[in-house]
């Protein structure tokens, strides 16, 4: 019988990084030490601990990384609690890749890019950011606006400081919700910060974060003169199968698992308001 997508592969966790108090980044390879499968930026994978649960996570590493995949996972439920408690060497199950991806080889090519992320919303965008950094000649200037509740809650902070900030043609604007000791950067919410920065409307925008942040950011971008067709975002809904059959992530005539998770803002507007 042919392979079935519902039968997962084995992944081995080879590294665990504590990113924030409630976010850990897990490095995953096959038992043979290879990448379990190839993906494109924005795509997701179903991770599971048999007997505990299975859930969809965005792949935070870039496809240009040929050695391993990474997942930044926030501790917020039964499965994620279990994942946070595991040690290096633990096997998990993994299947995918699922969904569409950011149009890195088409619409985004040659464009100036503006990434806007809130909290764990950086996870799917990090895949695109590193893809763009590794294919630098194909893209214009890159601006990254990233905010979270506090300095400690900035995911990938070390990578941002050590790598992104040192790249030519990449501007990083960090912000945290409230002032705190040891932080001399910007303080304030992401949507407000974006309006203050008033980025050029020639940029193509990729937004990811909590629904409320996305909502206000999109309103702000519209005020700045951005068109809906310039803005991409990702959606998340409960998923079980990952291939548009179990019915769970159905909105209108779309299934977020296969028709998403990446949607252009004007496509989102055509869907019923139920997310």
């Amino acid at each position: 019988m042919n392979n079935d997508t519902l039968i997962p592969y084995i992944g081995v966790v080879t590294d665990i990084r504590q990113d924030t108090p409630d976010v850990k980044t897990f490095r995953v390879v096959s038992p043979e030490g290879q990448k379990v499968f190839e993906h494109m930026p924005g795509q997701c994978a179903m991770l599971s601990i048999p007997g505990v649960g299975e859930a969809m996570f965005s792949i935070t590493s870039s496809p240009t990384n040929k050695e391993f995949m990474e997942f930044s996972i926030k501790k917020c439920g039964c499965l994620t609690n279990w994942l946070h408690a595991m040690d290096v060497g633990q096997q998990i199950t993994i299947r995918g890749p699922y969904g569409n991806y950011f149009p890195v080889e088409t619409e985004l090519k040659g464009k100036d890019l503006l990434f806007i992320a809130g909290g764990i919303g950086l996870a799917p965008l990090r895949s695109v950011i590193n893809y763009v950094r590794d294919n630098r000649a194909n893209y214009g200037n890159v601006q990254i606006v990233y905010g979270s509740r506090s300095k400690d809650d900035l995911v990938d902070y070390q990578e941002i400081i050590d790598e992104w900030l040192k790249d030519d043609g990449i501007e990083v604007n960090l912000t945290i919700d409230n002032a705190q000791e040891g932080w001399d950067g910007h303080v304030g919410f992401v949507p407000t910060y974006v309006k203050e920065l008033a980025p050029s409307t020639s940029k193509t925008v990729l937004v990811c974060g909590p629904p409320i942040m996305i909502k206000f950011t999109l309103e702000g971008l519209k005020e700045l003169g951005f068109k809906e067709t310039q803005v991409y975002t990702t959606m998340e809904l409960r998923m079980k199968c990952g291939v548009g059959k179990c019915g769970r992530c159905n909105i209108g005539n779309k299934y977020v698992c296969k028709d998403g998770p990446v949607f252009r803002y004007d496509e989102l507007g055509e869907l019923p308001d139920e997310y």
Partner: protein
Amino acid sequence: MLKISKDRITEIFNTVAESKSLYLPVNREDGQAEFKKYENGMVLSENLNTLRSAKDFFFPQTENLVDFKMEGKNIEVIDVREECEDFVIFGVRACDARSFTILDKVFLADPVDSYYKNRRDHGTIVTMACTRPSETCFCGSFGIDATEPEGDAVCYTDGSSYFFKANTEKGEAFINSVSSLLEDGDTAELEKVQAKTKEILAKLPLSNLSTDSFGGEKLNELFKSEKWAELSEACLGCGTCTFVCPTCQCYDIKDFNTGNGIKRFRCWDSCMYSDFTKMAHGNPRLSQVERFRQRFMHKLVYFPANNNGEFGCVGCGRCLSRCPVSMNIVKVMKALEEK
């Protein structure tokens, strides 16, 4: 057309059952019909339809997907799939036969669901043309002719004989397997019975139910209708409609620890349940209004939007007779089409 007299149908069943598993509608003690694996002596139900739909044959209520063995930090994945044996389902009605083509559009779409396809490949569907449609029937509204059902082979009756016609190679193989029992028969009486059935179908109380107000292009208009609140008010969220529905295919995937490994199984789920879309950060369908709307929007708008206008309902009427608060797709359609 090849036929067998009604009192000899058991000979067909016995012949088929010699080489394959045969399933047919049989009456339970309470008079309700259900599909049972044929054993000598079982009598074909005369009921119009079975209590449960026939979807179980291809999409069972629960099924094992894969097993895992856990040892320390290691996991072993065990593929438990086995090639299914050939089987025959006899006596499927036109509505349920159409439901298979609807389920095919979900489960056989890329990537193919191997569990479903395995059963589909090995199942032969012999449908039974209706002669006594019920007042809860409205298959005609979805372009189904109850007197000419789809299926690998079709069985018709004129009251005294059963006639057989093949639609597919599988159907021909079925008829060939019992051909020694069949004889050529005159269809004059059968044609009269079919004409009479068509007259009954045209006079059914729901025969004028129209689908004109539905379809993919009506998405925003229907989604925003103010009628959903009133229509869903009585809904208990029990999920009975989704379980008896031949086309409802939403499922859940769960793990069960047997004490000697983990079984991952899938089981029917219902968009009518409050936790269907519940996530760690919240639930996009907070009240029964949204859940109720989802079920009917999916059948009448979203499914046709993705499938060249084909609706996700076959008019079998099970939800009409089973809903504990007497809400159903017909009431929803009638209410929504009133401007």
